[in-house]
Structures are given as structure tokens and as C-alpha cells.
């Protein structure tokens, strides 16, 4: 466990190395990047193997940083962090594998990529609110360059919109955190200390602080109606960046809501709960409905991400252990699934067919030309629908149960979202891969074969698929970490009830 901070250092170090190496050879940069993400993920898995849930965060590193302001370099992890760290490592490794074909400015690409990863690892490991915020902001700027330099549709606009929304969200968070810090006597930024101080704030202060901090984080999590950056940005981004952005970075926002906003200001959550829940439901339904009418393949996935993150936010808003554990599980599940979907669309399909418009794709017999992609997408699509057997199902079930316990109406509305997800997934599956299933004669070879699936792509896809199936059949693997963490004293004020 104590080696977990090295995930951060390795990532930043790898970024510098990749930048230096990339000037000489693109291949060197790739291998350095792969080695870095794999090593970091290895550290996480090793920590996971020996993880014993304790009563809250377990400290990994703690040193005074700016004593006069009460800022400490405090890294710690619990079951929730660990789950998300596993996700980060997985998504990062798969992302590097799916970026193997980047030729332009490869060193810089991987430098930005690894810096982003380092920032994400840092967020999940921070136990000091200031440090949390620092890593959160470090993760913002590389996103701009990844999208603007190597992206596709409307990339400069998409990059700017994504980054400005993220930064605006983080500005809100900064405002709220500083307010809390100042109101608490400006002694410490430790999450525990802030929570203790916040217990004495006036009701009005708690409401305002919660609103600022939660909203700021929720923007990054794609809360309706502040979600519009997500489809634009994710579509504009290159594949590996989309995988990371939709898969992991959106979870930073949700994690911030869970780790910072909710435990610090429970009164605030109690007040704003219905608003958040209905906005989340709106996101679930609206995201799904919009996905249903898209013509661009990638936009469908982009909007589906908004819909899935709506589930996460609903789970958090329900404010009980069951729903929150479902939310964290959904974070993991969606991270893997979104990665898979973007990989298929961006790398496997677009790089070969050079089109993402469903109208054009349905004229190609893709299930014959790219059978691996078709199968992968079918499986990923099923997982995205919440089909039992894949990781989305136990997550959505837990969220529905938890939401039902708080307000049955929310659960009913969310179940509608499950149906809409099935509809748009099936539509895009059919149009993209099986559109011309009728016209191709049985035994004829396709006219122009497309480039074969590379081993790197296969490895990445199989890795992600395996993850979603394993967690779908045995969600206990993760829930055994998540639930004790949610039952720790830190969350007691805001989450109701332990598991039955």
C-alpha cells in the first residue's frame, strides 16, 4: 500500500521521459508510456491484493507543506480510492495501447497523457482538500492540448469548451473551499478537520458552501444542464483521450462530490438533495433521448456518458450507503465500458473507415469486415445497457435500491433511463455494424477488406471486456472495498445506514 504514491511520481516522471525520448523516436516514447502506466497499474493491483479495509482512510504520506496556511501533503487511500485507482490504471493502460498508432508529436502526446494520469492518481489519493484541488487543477490543462492537437471533429472549440467548463467548475470549488477554510478559522485543509469545523457553521453557510463545492464538482461529472461540454469535448478528443476523459476524468467530479462536498456539508446535502436528484434523473433521461437521435457514432457514446453519470449522481444524491456504493461501482463500470465504446468507435472503426456517420456506416457490412469490432461493440453495448452479467447491472441495481429507499419516484424515473439506454444502444449497434446485414450474400468475401485488428487493439479490448465481465459476475470484489469505506465515521453524518 505504501507504494501507492509512486503511481503519481512514476506518471510525472514518465511524462518527462516520454517528452525527452519522443524528440528522438516515437517508438521509444510509446514504450516508455506503456511501461509507466503498466508499472503504475501494477503498483495499484499489488496494493489491492493486500488491501484490508480499515475504518476510513489509511495514510500513505503525510508532511507539512505550507505550515502557515495549514496545508499538508497528505496522501491516503480507502476502498473507494482503491477502486478508482484500479480503474485509472486499467483505463490508462488500455488508452496507451489504443494510441499506438499516433505518429505526430508522439512524445508530447504521451507527456500530456501521463501528466493527466498523474494528476488523476493524485486526486484519488489526496486527503487534504488543498492537495486535492491542486491535483484536480493539474489535470485540467493537459486535456486542452490533448484534444486541440490530436483530436478530430471541431477540436479547438471542443477543447476550449471542455477546459473552460472544467476550470469554471473548479473555480466554484475553490470559492466554496476557501470560504469553508476561512470560516473554520483558517487552520487546516485536512478533510477531517474541515468536516469537524463545518459542523459548527451556520445553516446558511453550509447551504452556500455545499452549493458551490458540489456544483463545481458536478459540472465535471456532467450534471444536467451543465453537461454540454461533455459530448462536444469527448467527440473532439482523440480516442485515448476520450477513453480517459469519459472513463476517468468525469469520475473525478463525482469523486469530489462524494469525498469533499457531501461529508463536509451534510446539512447542505439534505437541503439540496431533491434538486440534485431530479437534475440527475433529467440527465439520465435527456442524455439517453438525445443519444437516440444522433447521426454521429461518437456523439451517441458521448451522450450515453452523460446518461450514465446521471446514475452516479443519483446514487450520490440518495445519500445512503447502498446507493453510494452503487454509485462508486457505476463509476468503475462506466469507466471501463466508456473506454471500450470509445475505443471501438474511434480507433477500430473511424481509423479504418474514416467516417463516423451512422448513415454511411450502415452501408458497410461492418460485422463482416470487422468482426472483432462488431463482437466487442455488441458486448460493450450490452454492458452499457446494464445487461445482467456485466458490471453495469449490479451497479444500477444497487443505485435503484438505494434511490428507492430515499424516494421511490426517483428510482422509477431512473428505471426509464435503463430502457432508453437499451433503445439507443441497440439502434447504434444495428446501424453501425449490422446495417446492411441483408444485402451481403452469404459466402462472398467483402469487396475491400479493411486493415486487420492489431494485437495492441485486441489486448486493450480484451482487457476492458474481461474487467466488466468479472466485476459483473462478482461485484463483491469491489463492493468489499467500497462498502466498508462508505460506512466509516467520515461519512456517517451524510450517508444513512449500513448494509443490511
Amino acid at each position, binding site marked *: 500500500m505504501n507504494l501507492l504514491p509512486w503511481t503519481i511520481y512514476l506518471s510525472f516522471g514518465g511524462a518527462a521521459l516520454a517528452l525527452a525520448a519522443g524528440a528522438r523516436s516515437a517508438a521509444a516514447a510509446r514504450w516508455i508510456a506503456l511501461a509507466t502506466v503498466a508499472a503504475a497499474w501494477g503498483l495499484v493491483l499489488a496494493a489491492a491484493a493486500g488491501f484490508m479495509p480499515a475504518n476510513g482512510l489509511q495514510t500513505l504520506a503525510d508532511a507539512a507543506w505550507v505550515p502557515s496556511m495549514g496545508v499538508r501533503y497528505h496522501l491516503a487511500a480507502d476502498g473507494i480510492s482503491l477502486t478508482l485507482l484500479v480503474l485509472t490504471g486499467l483505463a490508462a493502460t488500455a488508452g496507451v495501447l489504443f494510441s499506438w498508432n499516433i505518429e505526430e508529436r508522439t512524445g508530447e502526446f504521451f507527456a500530456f497523457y501521463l501528466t493527466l494520469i498523474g494528476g488523476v492518481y493524485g486526486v484519488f489519493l489526496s486527503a487534504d482538500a488543498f492537495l486535492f484541488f491542486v491535483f484536480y487543477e493539474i489535470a485540467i490543462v493537459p486535456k486542452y492540448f490533448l484534444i486541440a492537437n490530436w483530436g478530430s471533429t471541431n477540436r479547438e472549440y471542443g477543447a476550449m469548451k471542455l477546459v473552460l467548463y472544467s476550470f469554471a467548475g473548479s473555480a466554484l470549488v475553490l470559492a466554496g473551499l476557501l470560504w469553508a477554510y476561512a470560516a473554520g478559522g483558517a487552520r487546516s485543509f485536512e478533510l477531517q478537520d474541515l468536516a469537524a469545523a463545518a459542523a459548527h457553521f451556520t445553516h446558511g453557510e453550509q447551504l452556500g458552501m455545499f452549493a458551490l463545492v458540489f456544483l463545481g464538482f458536478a459540472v465535471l461529472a456532467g450534471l444536467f444542464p451543465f453537461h454540454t461540454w461533455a459530448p462536444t469535448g469527448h467527440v473532439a478528443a482523440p480516442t485515448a483521450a476520450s477513453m480517459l476523459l469519459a472513463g476517468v476524468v468525469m469520475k473525478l467530479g463525482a469523486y469530489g462530490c462524494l469525498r469533499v462536498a457531501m461529508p463536509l456539508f451534510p446539512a447542505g446535502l439534505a437541503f439540496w438533495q431533491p434538486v440534485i436528484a431530479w437534475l440527475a434523473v433529467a440527465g439520465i433521461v435527456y442524455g439517453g433521448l438525445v443519444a437516440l437521435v444522433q447521426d454521429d457514432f461518437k456523439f451517441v457514446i458521448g451522450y450515453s456518458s452523460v446518461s450514465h453519470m446521471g446514475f452516479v449522481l443519483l446514487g450520490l444524491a440518495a445519500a445512503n450507503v*447502498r446507493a453510494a*456504493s452503487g454509485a462508486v461501482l457505476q463509476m468503475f463500470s462506466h469507466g471501463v465500458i466508456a473506454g471500450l465504446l470509445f475505443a471501438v468507435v474511434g480507433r477500430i472503426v473511424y481509423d479504418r473507415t474514416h467516417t463516423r456517420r451512422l448513415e454511411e456506416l450502415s452501408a458497410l457490412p461492418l460485422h463482416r469486415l470487422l468482426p472483432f469490432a462488431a463482437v466487442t461493440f*455488441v458486448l460493450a453495448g*450490452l454492458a452499457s*445497457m446494464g*445487461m*445482467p*452479467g456485466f458490471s453495469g*447491472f*449490479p451497479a444500477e*441495481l*444497487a443505485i*435503484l*435500491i*438505494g434511490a*428507492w*429507499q430515499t424516494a*421511490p419516484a426517483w*428510482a*422509477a424515473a431512473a*428505471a*426509464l433511463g*435503463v*430502457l432508453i439506454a*437499451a*433503445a439507443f444502444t*441497440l439502434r447504434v449497434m*444495428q446501424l453501425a455494424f*449490422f446495417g446492411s*446485414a*441483408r444485402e451481403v450474400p*452469404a*459466402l462472398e468475401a467483402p469487396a475491400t477488406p479493411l486493415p486487420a485488428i492489431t494485437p495492441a487493439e485486441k489486448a486493450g479490448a480484451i482487457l476492458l471486456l474481461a474487467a466488466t465481465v468479472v466485476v459483473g459476475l*462478482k*461485484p*463483491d470484489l469491489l*463492493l*468489499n472495498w467500497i*462498502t466498508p469505506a462508505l460506512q466509516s465515521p467520515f461519512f456517517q453524518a451524510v450517508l444513512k445506514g449500513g*448494509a*443490511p
Partner: protein
Amino acid sequence: MSGVPWLSLIIFVPWAGALLLAVRPRLGGRAVRLLALLCSLSTLAFGLALLGSFDRAATGYQFVEDHAWIAALNVHYHLGLDGLSLILVLLTGLVAPSALLASWRQERDPRLFQLLFLFLQGSALGVFLALDFFHWFIFWELSLVPAFFLIKLWGGGAATRAAYQFIIYTMAGSACMLLAFAAIFAATGTLDFTQLAGLAASGALGVKLAALGGFWPEAVFLGVFLGLAVKVPLFPFHTWLPPAYAEAPTGVSMFLTGVMSKMGVYGFFRILWPLFPAPLHAASGGLLWLALGGVVLGAFAAMRQSDLKRMVAYSSINHVSYCLLALFAVAAATGRSGLTSEPAAAALSGALLQMFNHGLSASALFFCVGVLESRGGGRRGLAEFGGVRSAAPVFAGLCGIAMFSSLGLPGLNGFVGEFLIFRGVFGLAPWAAATGCLGLLVTAIFLLTFYQRVFHGPRAGAGAGEFCDLSGLETATLAPAIALMFLLGVLPQLLIGLYNPLVTFWAGHLTLP
């Protein structure tokens, strides 16, 4: 016998076959078909083996497998077999291989076809054997996916639309059921059917759900009901069925009507009735009408079809609705004073028997229509054929037997089930039985019309040209079913004996909590 996880084997051998086919893309056509057929037959083999050691006197679950699985959701890997499941397993074991045999000549991508089919078979078996909602729902949902692809990729002209309608409709119902079970778990902390049934019997389930207040307890019942009703299908949730059955390729239609429709009915018996006896009783008045609607309107609609496949599809709706008619009649009569258990037992017994018999006869009918279609160059209109009997006498004979079985001719298997149902329902809700007879009448009309138009008379249409009689393969596909039709018509106790104690137990414990 103990120690071997028979039930898991039943489910997973077809899946293993599917996996094998998936990872060996270069297997030749023959090998693919043989492997698939073998895996499919394994179900029958296991079923017969279990038949041998099945304790017919017991009413509880046998060959139970129960392992802790997901602690966080209190989920156990719980499989069990009782009389009801056993006959459905046997049914699947019979229908699936014959469906595969019916698709033997399928040339388009046979490997993928067999693979999907085996996956479908395994999932259906899982539905019949699972006793905890978590994996029951996994199997329930997973059965939709191969069915969707089978219809879509190998189906007729409007296959895509039909497949979509099928899956969206069913998933809508499943979403309702998922929500309902989430609520049930929230209230009780368990998803196990046996435990929930126990809670319901003692009245605790009703109390816990009532704690929600408002209309939510009814909503929970409605959610489970909708999920199952769409699958059966119960009128008026049936609109997906005729296109789906009509557009699907022959083998798939056989399996859909033979096995998948039974999944819905099974759900009513295994889940809805034990868990919600009181709400079911309260709603049974309206539900009886719905079942009758399916019976009568299904038959009338069939009569008006000119497409033979759609005719058989509507007839399926009609026949399956009899099972639900019986169940709802029993539910309506529950708690009524002066009720003897005899009509209830008859109705329930008839329903179970009807499940099996309809599975046999309907799949046989679809096969016959499939033969007509293939001989007729893709045409399957009622007016497209004439005088086939003189061209293919064996075929006409076997088809006639299947048709009569579906009609309910005494001496064939269909009669016993329908008779028992009507006898029971007459004792419980006489007016319903009377209205249902209308269905019987109309069924007879359209089936006889079908037979007369297609097989009798001068040779016309497709029947006029080259019309070979049944090949060896086709005969082999049809013969077992036909034989069983005779056998079960004369000796229905072969089946009834398997579930009689169970039915007697149900009928003897008709109380509201």
C-alpha cells in the same frame, strides 16, 4: 448422484458449446452443426437422467445448489428443480434439438447461428432453474440478446423492425421488473425466491411493502406483472409477437413459441403468484378478462390471417393464454369460502400440461409451415398452396396430427391439457370458461380451414409444381414430437405424475395471507 452439480451442467453445457464455437472459427460446417446438436441434446440427456432420480412425491426443490455469491446484495447462486421446472427442462430438451435440425440446411453463417442458438438455449434453461432474482434476471435478459440477433440476421424482410419491437418491448417490461425487485430488496433485504415466497406466505412481505405508503406497493406488483406479462404475452402486451414469430427463421420460431413463451408463464407461477397472492387475487377480475381477450381475440385474429406463420403466431397467443386463464381463475377463487381444491388442482394441472403440450404442437406446426415455405420458394400465404396432400402424403399426415393436437382433439396430447383447464375454470369461474370455449371453437375453425385449403383440394399454387415429400432429416425432426403427441394423449399421467404433488399442494393451500 449428489455432489455433481446437475443443474449447473444443464445450463452451462450449451453455453460451453457456444463458447467453443466462438473460439474455433475455422470449424467446418458439418462439425459445427454436429457439435451444436450434441450440446443441445445434452439437455435432454441430463433431463432424462434427472427424471430417473426425481422424487415424484416431494413438493420441494431437488438437486438444489446453493452457494454464497455476492455478499453485498445478499445474493446466492441458488438453483433448484421441482416438477414445474422439470417438465420445462424436458420440453426445452425436446424443442431445441428439433429446432436445430429444422435449421440444418441453414447456409448463411451457420457457426454464428448455432452459437447464438446454444446461448439462447442455455439462458432459457437458466430461467427455469434459477431461484434467486439476480441470476434469474441475468438469464432472463441474456436470452433476449441471441433471440434478437437470430431474428434480425436470419429473418425475413421486416426482420429488423420485428426484432427491435421484440427486444424493446421485452426490455421495457424487464425494466419495470428490475425496479420492482429493487424495491423488494430495499424492503426485505433478500432476492431469493424461496425466501420471498416464505415471507409472502406469512404476510410479512405485504407488510414490508406496505410500509412504503401511497401507491408504491401496488406499483411493485405492477412492475413484476408487466415484466412477465410482456413475455408470455398477455393481451394487450402481445403486439410484438406476431411480427417476431413471423419474421424469425423457422428454427428460431419453433424455439420462441416452444420455450420462450413458457418463460413468461413460468414466471407467473414461480414469482408473481407466490410473492403476491393478495394483489393477484385483487386484480384477478380484470386479469381474467385479459386472459380471455388473449384466448378469444387471438383465435379470431388467427382466423383472419392469410400468412400462415402469423396464423400460427396468433394461435400461440391463444394457447398460452389458456394457461394464464387457469392461473387467474384460481387466483380469483382464492380465499373464497366453500372452495374445494379439486377444480383448482385441475386448472393448475391443466395449465402445466398445456405448457408442455403447446410447446410440442406449436413448434411442430411452425416446422410444418417452414417446410411449406421452403418448398414454396419463400411463399407462405394461405392461398399459395393447394392439394399438397397428394404431392406429399407423409407430410400431410404428420402435419395433420400436429394440427389436431393443437386443436385439442381427444386422443392427442392437446386435449388433456385443455380439458383439465376448462374443467377447473368451470368450477371456479364458469362464465370465463364459457367465454373461453369460444376460443376453442374458433381455433378449430381456422386450423381446419388451414388444413383444408393447403392440403386438400386440387393441386394449386406451390403445391402444383415440384413438391417433394418430407426428407429423412425432416421426418426425423418431426417424428419424435408426433410420437409424443400420441403418447401423451393416451398416457398423460407420464407427465402429470411429475408435478401432481406440487399441484395438489398448491391447490390445497389457497389462502390469502
